[in-house]
């Protein structure tokens, strides 16, 4: 797999994405299981609503690499899952991502909060070192990724998940701003 340029289509200015619209996109993509370690960026707009939504089975895991393994096991069934985590957890689980998601070409979908990224600023231009390195790492690993910064980006979620499953490949959806709870 070759490295891809960073998100040329991302809309970087605009209103934050709405949580309900992201949740609707997940349901449209037939995601039924959410594996999560709590993340500040997505806590109010996604995790709390998902926890109360009978349309999802929420599995709280202790560490992000666990969720990589669980999602891999689930991929042998018709169940679709996402990992709802923080970018720090993505970085922590890189070896599992390398071996399981990339090495075995597994349809593992990550929804990753970019904690403290400045609104409207591309991740690669963030003042925060941890944020700046996320996209280059994903590109070095050849992992498909999309920035969900504004409401206009939400439309990209369902096709990204559908492609992850139809092509059996990992995909990372980077959440750049806190989704609004309503």
């Amino acid at each position, binding site marked *: 797999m070759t490295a891809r340029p960073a998100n040329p289509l991302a809309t970087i200015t605009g209103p934050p994405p709405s949580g309900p619209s992201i949740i609707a996109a997940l349901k449209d993509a037939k995601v039924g299981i959410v594996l999560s370690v709590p993340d500040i960026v997505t806590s109010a707009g996604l995790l709390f609503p998902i926890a109360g939504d009978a349309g999802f089975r929420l*599995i709280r895991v202790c560490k992000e690499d*666990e969720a990589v393994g669980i999602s*891999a*096991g*689930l991929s042998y*069934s018709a169940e679709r899952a996402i990992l709802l985590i923080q970018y720090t957890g993505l970085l922590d689980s890189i070896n*599992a991502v390398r071996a*399981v998601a990339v090495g075995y070409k597994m349809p593992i979908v990550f929804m990753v909060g970019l904690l403290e990224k400045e609104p409207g600023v591309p991740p690669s231009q963030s003042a925060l070192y941890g944020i700046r390195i996320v996209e280059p790492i994903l590109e070095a690993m050849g992992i498909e990724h999309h920035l969900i910064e504004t409401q206009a980006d939400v439309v990209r979620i369902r096709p990204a998940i559908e492609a992850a499953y139809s092509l059996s490949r990992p995909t990372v959806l980077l959440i750049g701003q806190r989704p609004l709870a309503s």
Partner: protein
Amino acid sequence: MMKRDQCFRVLASHCPDDVVVAVYSSAFDWVRIRPHALNYFAVGAMGLASSHALGLALGQPGRRIIVLDGDGSLLMNLGSLVTVAAVAPGNFYHFLCENGTYEANGAHPIPARDKVDFSGLARAAGYPNVHRFEELGSFGRDIAAVLAEPGPVFVDLKLVPGESAPADYDSLYAASRRDAFRQALGPAR
């Protein structure tokens, strides 16, 4: 202490067609004793066997999922005990092959091997059914009843290497095994 290959021969006689997730030395021994398309070795990263197995258990509720974990491996993913206990899949059987060493990496000892109580950890994490076997006779006598219990079940096997199989990683992790596993499961349900 039981010899691992002898213990696995007994276990294999009780689970001829179950999904078995196995790692490292246990995987090499297991695949020789029970060659089967429903063996799952694609764990990828050390410690994740129980996590892969949890996903399989959730996605395949009609099948019994058996994990042959290592003690060094489990130490890398102790939180998985808590996660499994919380999800509580009724078809999940977690066997720990406790030999006190990182056998595949030169048999160096695991931390605190004379102190750590894996059965106690599993019980404290919330596994409702926990067993420990040190003798082949009692294992052979009780294993059918253990496998009849609702999961999650944790079984601590005190083992030493027996007649060990050669370590052929290329064969173990071959893409063809994953394809065969998927086909053996049948259409996604």
